[in-house]
């Protein structure tokens, strides 16, 4: 299969199975893009999450742009963005046209009651491995913990946290170079 088609198929799969917003796609992207296709490395994957999160717009589209462009330029970008978008587009179009009552089916609701806690586990489980590739140590562990608490308990915007981290990194580099 050509690179373009592989990009399309991979992001179609990711788009079709991402339930519950931006972060829910992280485990899928990690498995498909990092582990299976080796399109990007572990460190680059973390950079990608930070960039996709701090740029405006839809995180899934931002991710598709990054990977598609890196693998096959603008052509790759178009294929991966199309792949990521088409599943939701087609499903929602069907619902808008035929099943406006979709939500009231108890069977659908039952399936989703099972999926919701599963999605939370999918996000939480790879944290330890990711912390290792991000080089989190006992000394700098306070940074991710503080970031998580600020977002979770104080409702601070992740974008603000990312900007603070960038400034912090620059200051650190400056001190290191003195």
């Amino acid at each position, binding site marked *: 299969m050509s690179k373009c088609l592989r990009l399309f198929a991979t992001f179609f799969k990711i*788009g*079709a199975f991402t*339930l519950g*917003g*931006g972060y829910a796609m992280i485990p899928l992207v990690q*498995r498909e893009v990092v582990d299976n296709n080796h399109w990007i490395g572990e*460190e680059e994957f973390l*950079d990608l999450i*930070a*960039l996709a*999160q701090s*740029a405006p717009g*839809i995180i*899934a*589209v*931002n991710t598709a*742009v*990054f990977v598609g*462009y890196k693998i096959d330029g603008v052509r790759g970008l178009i294929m991966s963005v199309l792949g990521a*978008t088409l*599943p*939701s*587009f087609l499903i*929602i179009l069907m*619902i808008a*046209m035929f099943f406006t009552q*979709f939500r009231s089916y108890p069977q659908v*609701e*039952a*399936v*989703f*009651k*099972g999926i*919701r*806690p*599963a999605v*939370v*586990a*999918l*996000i*939480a489980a790879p*944290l330890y491995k*990711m912390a290792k590739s*991000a*080089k989190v140590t006992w000394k700098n562990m306070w*940074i*991710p*913990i503080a*970031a998580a*608490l600020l977002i979770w308990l104080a409702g601070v*915007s992740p*974008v603000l*946290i*990312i900007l*603070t*981290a*960038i400034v912090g*990194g620059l200051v650190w580099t400056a001190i*290191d*170079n003195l």
Partner: protein
Amino acid sequence: MIYLQLFLSFFKIGLFGFGGGYAILSLIQHEVLRYGWMTPQEFTDIVAVSQMTPGPIGINSATYTGYTACQTAGMSDSMCVLGSVVATSAIILPSVIIMLIICQIYLRLKENRWVEGSLKALRVTVIGLIAAAALLLMTPENFIDWWSVALFAMVFCGTLFLKMHPILLICIAGVMGYIIYN
């Protein structure tokens, strides 16, 4: 001209929608109610449908709004589909342009000492961001009873120890949900 309005509104949403998902919803709500494209009740339906269907909430609502807005205006089915296409492309376009620029800067400058320094700090911080995402989802709506906790534990172990594919785990959890709750 409803297509132009749809395009401009959703382009704006894509451009200023920082932070993804639910942050975008309030922007969409504002635009959609301003033009009377749908009632507040219909908007609540979109949110519910988005939560139950795969894919980004931004795309889901753009597609749905594009269709319904044309329908409310009394247009034919195929014109409504065109409305969906216009709204969906409009919300994607800013992401594509901005991310493409960011991407080029990143790939060119990632070896630069200063960029490398901030990326190092960023990587460590992102772990906290992801942890926060998981914590924020641990709500009573997502964990309704002990079955939820059991499903959480099952998927957690399946990912960590058995390295099962996320898609397989989502399907298993869906089937289990059907058996338990239906």
